[in-house]
């Protein structure tokens, strides 16, 4: 297991370097321009100056090298300094700066993290919480009305674009019923019961929209996995031992069925960090997804590069975690 992990990690490093290069190169080729958003009244000479002040004058290799240093050396050092209070050198390191805000990209990301995790993460958890029981019951009672309904539900959930459900929710619940706010308040802090209720209220709609979408996918998966396992011989053994149906299904079958589901959940987790661009846009959650799309639109290349690369790191990391989870959950898998 240990050497397996090490091997995977050893592969991850060159892979990530390759990815970072691809990302940097592709984005560098992109015809987006940091001064594009400026009003037309700003004369071209000024634009040119602005571009130069953003470091766009240097050759590609130099910029890539600088970015690598900034990302792999300076930012981690800063993080360590922040966490531990130690200091390395003069602390005056060049950081990856966003063109739009002229502030360190990493800080922006840190700022966006909470709402993304709250809303998107919650919806993920919610999706799993809804989906797993549905999947279990659907499989256990295959072809029952519950199963048929569950299938329909998950397929409908999958086939309606979130931008449509999101808007529908707003029209129904914000405009007509006035139950929930249509705009997410990112400055809101939970201090007491009332503010907690507000937080829940403002999270309900985005979480539901995303959660339903996630649930529809996970429940299909769970059902298939349960069905696979319900037909296994060991289920018969468990019944023959006189175990109650509850134990048979929830202990014996569940435990086995969850193995692939959990790994898939882990594999898809980076999507949580990637943010649900569309949902965030609709409810103004302004998480990482919105940061990314804003940066793309605004031609803020350092932000796009950094964010994209962080996603890549997360994907690679969670791939590894999923593999390890598989090994941990399933004693048959021994990687060595």
């Amino acid at each position, binding site marked *: 297991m240990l*050497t397996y992990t*090490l*091997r995977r990690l*050893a592969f991850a490093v060159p892979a990530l370097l390759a990815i970072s290069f691809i990302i940097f190169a592709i984005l560098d080729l992109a015809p987006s321009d940091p001064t594009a958003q400026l009003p037309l009244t700003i004369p071209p000479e000024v634009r040119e100056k602005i571009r130069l002040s953003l470091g766009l004058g240097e050759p590609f290799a130099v910029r890539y090298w600088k970015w690598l240093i900034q990302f792999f050396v300076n930012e981690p050092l800063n993080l360590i300094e922040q966490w531990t209070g130690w200091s390395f050198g003069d602390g005056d390191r060049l950081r990856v700066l966003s063109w739009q805000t002229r502030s360190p990209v990493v800080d922006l990301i840190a700022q966006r993290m909470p709402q993304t995790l709250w809303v998107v993460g919650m919806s993920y958890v919610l999706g799993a919480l809804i989906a797993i029981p549905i999947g279990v019951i659907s499989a256990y009672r295959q072809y029952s009305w519950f199963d048929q309904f569950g299938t329909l539900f998950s397929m409908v959930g999958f086939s309606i674009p979130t931008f449509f459900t999101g808007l529908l929710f707003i029209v129904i619940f914000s405009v007509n019923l006035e139950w929930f706010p249509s705009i997410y308040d990112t400055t809101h802090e939970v201090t007491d019961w009332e503010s907690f209720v507000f937080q829940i209220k403002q999270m309900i709609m985005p979480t539901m929209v995303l959660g339903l979408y996630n649930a529809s996918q996970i429940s299909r998966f769970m059902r298939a996995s349960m069905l696979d396992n319900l037909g296994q011989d060991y289920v018969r053994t468990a019944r023959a031992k006189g175990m109650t149906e509850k134990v048979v299904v929830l202990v014996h079958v569940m435990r086995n069925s969850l193995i692939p589901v959990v790994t898939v959940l882990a594999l898809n987790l980076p999507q949580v960090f990637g943010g649900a661009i569309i949902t965030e846009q609709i409810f103004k959650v302004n998480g990482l997804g919105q940061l990314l799309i804003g940066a793309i639109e605004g031609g803020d290349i350092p932000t796009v590069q950094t964010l994209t690369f962080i996603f890549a790191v997360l994907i690679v990391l969670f791939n590894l975690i999923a593999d390890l989870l598989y090994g941990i959950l399933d004693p048959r898998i021994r990687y*060595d």
Partner: protein
Amino acid sequence: MSDAAALDAPRAAPTAETLLRVQNLSVHFPIHKGLLRRQVGAVQAVDEVSFDVLKGETLGLVGESGCGKSTTGRAILRLTPITQGRVILDGEDITHIEGETLRQRRRKMQMIFQDPQASLNPRMNVSGIISEPLVEHRSLSRKQMQERVYELMDAVGLRRSFANRYPHEFSGGQRQRIGIARALALDPGFIVCDEPIAALDVSIQAQVVNLLEELQQRLGLTYLFISHDLSMVRHMATRVAVMYLGRMVELAPREKLYSVPRHPYTQALLSAVPEPDPRREATRQRIILTGDVPSPANPPSGCRFRTRCPHAFDRCAVETPAFRKLSDGHFAACHLSE
């Protein structure tokens, strides 16, 4: 039975001519481990196995699951890479031939597989399956091809009208017949039968075995008959070879092997086979081996059987017993039988 006359005909007696010679054949599957995926060892699936197969005979190959029977068979047919040793078919060394030469040689040697379900492509119909070798090796017209397929179907006792059916529409025995017809398509002289009856019911087994015997007589085939059913091997084979953990432990003409087994493993194996005779069973003294078969990736030193051998002594651990001739045609690899 309509062909009772055929039954009375004498069995094709093996001539002394050697059709296949296997010399020191080893097949090792490398095991890779660690950070750099270095090879740290090998599954010694087949190790230093030598034997001859005479023209027209049936050589039975028996042994427990995982002892390397199939691997031996596949290595002979060049279906798995050979680590060491030589395979000589019809006087030609086929150990290292490649490409088109190998493809041509394949016409001489064919295989019948254990699982009649798995060995037929479920998406091809019977005539497609049987004609595949013809398509690959003969340039026949559509009509000739059809004719040949019908001939083969007749030979194995399949109705011609089945030609357009798919494998899943047949019973196990019929499927095995399709497999046999495919193996016969190119008129091979030599057929490796890899447990052709293991997956079949008793009542069907007999049909297939009879068919194989009859074809052998009619076409003068030579079989390497792999099985773990000692009773069936006794019925089929002219000579029998016993393998244990990748090594050959005993090889003898049928009668000798069953009446005077010399290797302790052969003895244990024979005594473990249950006989459908309650009276004999009640009085039979079994040799019960203890423990499990060790892993071929990490076989015991010296004699591989020593960990389970009731007669093992010190020498067994240090010295590998040679596979030596004990009497005419009887070989064994055991220190006790020196």
